[in-house]
């Protein structure tokens, strides 16, 4: 488990991360979302032991990460641009990674390279941006470290590749202790494979929740109710967090159990009532508005 306790970091007087506290549990894919400059990269670099926090503490499995070889040996950090020496090929990168990550799994790497159709003898500088990102992820996965920190690594991947990576992550999580932490400015990209999401804004964490819990506890309903009094009573009875009425069509987001809410709606004899799918983005907007932030313009 990774514990981030009241961590702050400033660059030239500008606070990039401010008094941030969160936990990343084992067995989860943790998504870190936020706009550009929200502090995602800074947090990941601090988690990887690259940057030293100005204050606060970061612990990896109970040990401080800064200048701690034992803690750092459980981490692989893939930065947003990645690092490849000038004339490197995938094969020469294997050599490098074998030296710096003694647990590097060459066979697995060969297998994954084949699956992704990447040439191991091709100069990496001739790769497209997406191919470089794929290679970074594959190298990171094959290091065999428990924690893999990916900074904007998925932003350049196409949906097919993202799905493939997701599948590899799932396999790794089944086979061994593996905790991917993925930072992105695009919430939609993380929605389909993160278990837990933290939303960063202006250096602070607005929100850190389990996705399935979020989805289970919030519903979106659209209905038309004939009797205004019954409609008024219904809205009063439910834990409405957001509501929109256009003509006679009423749409609301409500907190609570799905079956209980639908049964209560049916009890007022609506002309029409149905449950609408709720996107992660909507949940976040709703929750953060409830928390008092005007977040609509912040997340993509």
């Amino acid at each position: 488990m990774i514990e981030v306790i009241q961590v702050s970091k400033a660059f030239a007087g500008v606070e990039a991360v401010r008094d941030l506290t969160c936990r990343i549990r084992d067995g989860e894919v943790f998504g870190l979302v936020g706009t550009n400059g929200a502090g995602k990269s800074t947090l990941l670099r601090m988690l990887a032991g690259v940057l030293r926090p100005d204050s606060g503490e970061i612990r990896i499995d109970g040990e401080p990460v800064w200048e701690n070889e034992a803690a750092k040996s459980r981490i692989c950090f893939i930065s947003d641009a990645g690092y490849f020496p000038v004339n490197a090929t995938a094969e020469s990168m294997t050599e490098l990674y074998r030296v710096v990550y003694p647990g590097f799994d060459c066979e697995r790497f060969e297998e994954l390279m084949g699956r992704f159709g990447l040439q191991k003898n091709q100069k990496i500088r001739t790769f497209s941006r997406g191919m470089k990102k794929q290679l970074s992820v594959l190298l990171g996965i094959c290091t065999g470290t428990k924690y893999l920190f990916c900074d904007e690594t998925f932003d350049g991947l196409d949906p097919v590749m993202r799905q493939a990576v997701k599948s590899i992550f799932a396999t790794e999580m089944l086979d061994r202790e593996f905790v991917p932490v993925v930072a992105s400015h695009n919430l939609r990209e993380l929605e389909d494979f993160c278990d837990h999401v933290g939303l960063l804004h202006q250096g602070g964490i607005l929100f850190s929740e389990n996705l399935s819990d979020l989805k289970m506890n919030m519903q979106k309903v659209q209905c038309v109710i004939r009797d205004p009094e019954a409609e008024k009573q219904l809205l009063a009875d439910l834990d409405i967090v957001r509501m929109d009425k256009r003509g006679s069509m009423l749409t609301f987001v409500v907190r609570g159990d799905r079956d209980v809410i639908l049964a209560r709606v049916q009890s007022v004899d609506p002309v029409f009532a149905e449950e609408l799918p709720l996107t992660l983005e909507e949940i976040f907007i709703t929750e953060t508005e409830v928390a008092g932030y005007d977040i609509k313009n912040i997340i993509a």
Partner: protein
Amino acid sequence: MTSKISLRKMIRNELRQNAWLPALISVAALFLYPVCYLLMLQSTRRDVYNGMPKSEMAGQNLRAVSAVLGNGNPLTIAAVLIAAVIAAGVVFSFLDSREKSDFYQSLTLKREKAFLVHYLVGWFSAVVPYLAAVLISLFGIGAVYGNVTADAVRITFSSIAIDILGFSAVYSFCVLAMVLAGRILVGILLMICYLLYGPALSVLLYGMTSVFFPSVGGAVTNSTVRLSLWLSPFTLLIQNAGLLDTEGAFVPHVLSLVVLAVYLAGAFLAAYLLYRRRPSEAAGNALSFPGMEKILKTAVTVPAAVGAGMMLGVLSGDGTGEVSIPFVVVFTLLLAFIFNGILEFIIHVDLKSIRKHWRSLAVTVALCSGILVFFAADPFRIDRWLPAEEKIGAMAVYVPVSMDDFGSSIQQPDIYERSTLEKSFTENFEPVYQAVRSYTEGTESSGSENTTSVQVAFRMKSGRVHYRYYEISTSEVSDMLDSLGKDETWREGYYPANYLDPSRYTDVSLERWISGDYEQKGESLSGSENIRMLAACIRRDMNRLSYQELREETPLFLAVFENNGKDLNGIYVENQSFYIYPEFSETLQYLKSQGVDTEKLEKTGFSADQVIKIDLSTSVADTEEESLYRDYMLTETKQIADLLACTKPDKASAWRVGTEGQPYASVTCQDGEYWTNLQITDQKRYDALLQSLEEQEDQTNA
């Protein structure tokens, strides 16, 4: 769980990634050592083929070892500097890039281990190719040419030790610069700064004392130059270069090597400790530690502005080296703004930051102004320093132009000045003290044409010796020397004949002292015993005469001690000429005993009946601003006789009257043409002669 990364594997991997660096250095080393060594040995073999005695071959081969593989090779010093800058710049270039920096800092390596890995990669990249090239030369090429001797091995290995020590020290300074910078360009600028700062500061100090405290400036030359050699690992390496004895063997400057080792340890330790504390976010910034900015800007801008201001002040002067102080002040303050702006731009890549950091600019300008005011005002009377008479044990003086009274163009190395001063201390120093007082009390203005440069040494009763340079009234200097010259002990310390080393010369040529194209050849004396005897006679004769007698007397002829190709291990020996005066009885007697016809060399003046024509060049206006000369041609016997009656040939330089005002004559005689300065013995008659020449010329023109 601890790190499993093997340092050895990491170094090997990094070397593989930067393989071009040792490859490049190998190519350079190949040309620098094996190729050059081969060419030199081949050249020796060719010399033997062309007739050089085989006995000289071993010596030549050893010289080749010293010149190429030994520390006498100046190219090695340049190579050490270039290799250190490139190696440190390449290996630590990852600190410039966030991606690379993130990669390396996230690895399971403590920072100190990461530092060691990169440090050693750069070190091996340069040292291994160098060692390989030198050893191939010594044992490979040397074996082919039969030159693997014990001396060759000793010379080469002592040079290897010094070169590696020097490289390590310079490289550590460069690494320190890279650790303190976040951009490669800034890193390279910092390297230059670290390697040159100390010597540059020392030179600046010398320049400023020379300009503002002329009495101190000249005296501090040697100590400043010596100090500058100790202030950088690179200059220390230079200090050890070429320290060879006459056999070509290396004579190390042990203390400088110890200091070099201290520099190495200091720079390595500083780089190591700072790397541990270096924030990773510094990648891409100019400086790793923001706190350095103000110190760096001030430390660079102030001496740079003052130094460049001084240089521009000298360039804007009249070419005599005199500096206009107002110009220096204006240039310095202007340059402080410019240099501060350049540094702001280098650090922030934004000129607006100049306005933002106006306080540091104000501090820089204030410091520049303060330094200039301090030097110009001289509040501690550094330039006008004069110790209390009762504290002085003895004083010595050296007047360079006074050497003209002993011989024609006596060329003395700087060291002669110092040894003359050291050997001519006198406790009867009142004449010197009074002459110096006229300077310190400001009664003489420096640079005036009526003054003469004088070097003075004060030996205090405490034992300390202080050296000073002064510009003192020429008449006072002349009186001072006349007074001192009455003391025979002082004469033995001051007169140049006492410093003549006859073993350095192969011949003594005896010539007329008035120069000319006359046909008659001089006499000569050769043989070491003859030269030694003649030198001893001259020394004794010269020491017998007071200084006043020597300067007033007209010489008979010149004795020129010459070195015609005598090998003194490459040391160049200047000819030494001494006037032989009529009072040099012992010398004249000795020459006669050796069969030298001295009478035919004697020339103290001209006889009017032998002179065909005189071309006279004389000053007609002599002011501070200008010195106008007029030329006259005297062909009439009466005019010639008149001129010769009121003048006499003068020695090489009549420094007491100033060269500006002295007449110069080209005298055409029946036996050839002579050129000489003239000393006016009867000013009224001379003026009357010039007036008659003027009138004659006017009539001719009319």
